[in-house]
């Protein structure tokens, strides 16, 4: 490495000048000035539909940008730094976090959303509206939860394999646990329950309330949480949970391996997992069916699109959003990724009634549609994600570290109450 003095100095001077010169121009407010940037998380919006939109709206220069699972963190950072902001962004079920910052977004009602409201599920539409009537989110999908199972392996083990028969045999969680025990005998080393988190999350999703009410008050009665907790602990005690590494965060690669090699023969999840399942385990195509989940209908997740205040052409952005979420395009997103349409008109679209190859010829809309019809809208507070994480962290401690379930429950309750006290929800 020869570093002559002159070369060093010239280089230093040039770079110093470049750095100073670059300092003079500051970061742009939106990510791609002159273009309409749309942020979405993996499998959150259909890329095929997005591609069509790019061509359909040349004036807006739509620029889709996939931001993986950390969209929320990036959006908050961009909002507080007021730089590189998206014009349109996806928001998850934690949309209520942004109700206290509606001045950063465009009110969709001012852009003509009132005329479109009637085409979407009323409860879902309402979930995107702040308490003072600001329409922040345009519905993408809802999350009706069903049982996904490998019909080939069920049949191989001499168990019922047709959706109606499976659903009839597994109407309650206890039925499901008993069934899982039988499968374990016949197919050793395979699992029907991903982890305690799966049981807790989807059991709670079947309840009429979660943690807080619409006024962000902590519910006096948290017995529904305890019910879901006890069910999760029971599944663990019966030795039915696989407990993959990282599954608590949903980012584990082991579970994907288990899908691929057939170790996970069934699981309960909202319909939006379909895209992930198809892409993670393409080799299992044709071997899956879905049917009603044990314990009844429930909804988990579902997203929105919002337009930020920084978007120079909100009306143009709204046109894109409206087109992306038209019934036909929602039907396409359902078939591609399992994003369950928030527009009822999409349920009768001929394309979704056709047999689906990945699901062994089953048209899954029949199953998810029936569940979606019976789902009760449940309020999702700004702290729900952290609260759920706190409970499922403690469940993971029981499952992976042998912690006493009662102790874990006490610790989770204490941690949740401390969090809410720090946030000023509890006195």
């Amino acid at each position, binding site marked *: *490495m020869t*570093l002559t*003095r002159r070369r*060093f*100095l010239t*280089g*230093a001077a040039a*770079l*110093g000048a*470049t*750095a100073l010169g*670059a*300092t003079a121009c*500051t*970061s742009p407010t939106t*990510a791609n000035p002159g273009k309409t940037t749309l942020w979405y998380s*993996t499998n959150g919006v259909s890329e095929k539909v997005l591609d069509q939109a790019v061509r359909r709206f040349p004036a807006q220069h739509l620029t889709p*940008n*996939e*931001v*993986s*699972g*950390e969209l929320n963190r*990036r959006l908050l*950072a*961009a909002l*507080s*730094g*007021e*730089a*590189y902001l998206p014009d349109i962004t996806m928001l998850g079920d934690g949309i209520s976090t942004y109700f206290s910052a509606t001045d950063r977004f465009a009110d969709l009602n001012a852009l003509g959303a009132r005329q479109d409201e009637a085409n979407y599920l009323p409860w879902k539409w309402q979930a995107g509206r702040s308490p003072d009537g600001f329409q922040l989110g345009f519905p993408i999908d809802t999350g009706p939860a069903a049982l996904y199972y490998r019909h080939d392996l069920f049949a191989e083990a001499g168990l019922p394999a047709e959706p109606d028969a499976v659903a009839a045999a597994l109407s309650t969680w206890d039925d499901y646990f008993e069934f899982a025990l039988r499968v374990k005998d016949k197919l050793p080393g395979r699992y029907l329950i991903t982890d305690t988190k799966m049981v807790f999350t989807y059991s709670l999703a079947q309840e009429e309330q979660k943690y807080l009410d619409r006024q962000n008050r902590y519910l006096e009665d948290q017995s529904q949480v305890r019910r879901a907790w006890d069910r999760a602990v029971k599944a663990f005690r019966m030795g039915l949970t696989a407990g993959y590494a990282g599954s608590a965060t949903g*980012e584990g*690669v082991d579970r*994907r*391996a288990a899908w*691929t*090699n057939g170790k996970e023969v069934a699981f309960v999840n909202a319909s939006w997992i379909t895209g*992930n399942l198809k*892409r*993670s385990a393409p*080799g299992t195509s044709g071997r899956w069916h879905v049917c009603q989940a044990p314990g009844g209908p429930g909804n988990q997740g579902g997203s929105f699109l919002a337009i930020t205040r920084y978007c120079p052409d909100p009306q143009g952005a709204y046109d894109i959003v409206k087109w992306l979420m038209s019934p036909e395009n929602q039907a396409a997103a359902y078939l591609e990724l399992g994003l369950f349409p928030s527009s009822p008109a999409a349920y009768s679209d001929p394309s979704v009634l056709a047999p689906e190859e990945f699901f062994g010829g089953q048209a899954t809309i029949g199953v998810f549609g029936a569940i979606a019809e019976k789902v009760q809208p449940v309020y999702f507070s700004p702290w729900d994600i952290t609260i759920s994480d706190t409970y499922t962290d403690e469940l993971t401690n029981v499952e992976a570290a042998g912690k006493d379930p009662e102790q874990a429950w006490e610790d989770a309750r204490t941690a949740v109450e401390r969090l809410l006290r720090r946030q000023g929800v509890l006195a």
Partner: protein
Amino acid sequence: MNRTAKPGTLLTYGAMVVGALITLFPYYQLAVMASNTTADIYSSPPTFWFGGHLFENIGEVFAKIDFFGSLLNTLVVAIATTVLVLFFDSLAAFTFAKYDFPGSNVLFGILLATFVVPTQLAAIPQFDLMAKFGLVGSLNALIIPAAANAFGIFWMRQYARGAISDEVLEAARVDGAGFFRTYLSVGLPVLRPALAFLGIFTFVNAWNDYLWPLVVLIDSNHTTLQVALSQLNGLYLQDYAVVMAGTLVAIVPLVIVFLFGARHFIRNIAAGAVKG
């Protein structure tokens, strides 16, 4: 093999080679995974031999993330940081080592005390500062705060104290050379080995920095290699072979840089510890 080698030496040599192979195994296995399909990686027993899908996987990486853009950004940050650090640190180190001026001891003491401030924890306020400067998302947000650092000044001062003789400085003064000229003509040439070390050290650190870029570079199309890599992991968990291919192409440039500068670097890293 050396015929006259004693059995003890042979044993040591064997152990050293086995240790080196274990150390290098992760690189080998990374290349293996990057050249197989995801289904092959998931298989049990694990795959230990190369597959034929390397270029296909790398192609996916290039399609998914702006690899060359991230590479360029990382290069700009690493080079700019390195040059600025070398200049500012060597100048300050030369001054602290060879000049006694009012307050020099106190100021050097303050400099040492700044070691204690864990830089990662300033992340929230620094983010806010960058927002005020309008630099959130800009590469300058990485370069400017890192342009001079206490470690480099301290380390170089230790080196300069012994390496630059007072007689030469005095001779330069008699010749009528000013302070800055003396630094250029006397200080810098002597400090060259130390500069080479600090240069590689700074370059490697800037290249591998993760937490701060993760926080401040909010536009995923305008980021560094490390952040792009962690995004690829989030985006492509469904196709693990692609994540591995991305990991492979991300480490190759720096490994090459290191292999070229390795001799200088390894010799000097130790010099700092033993002298300091």
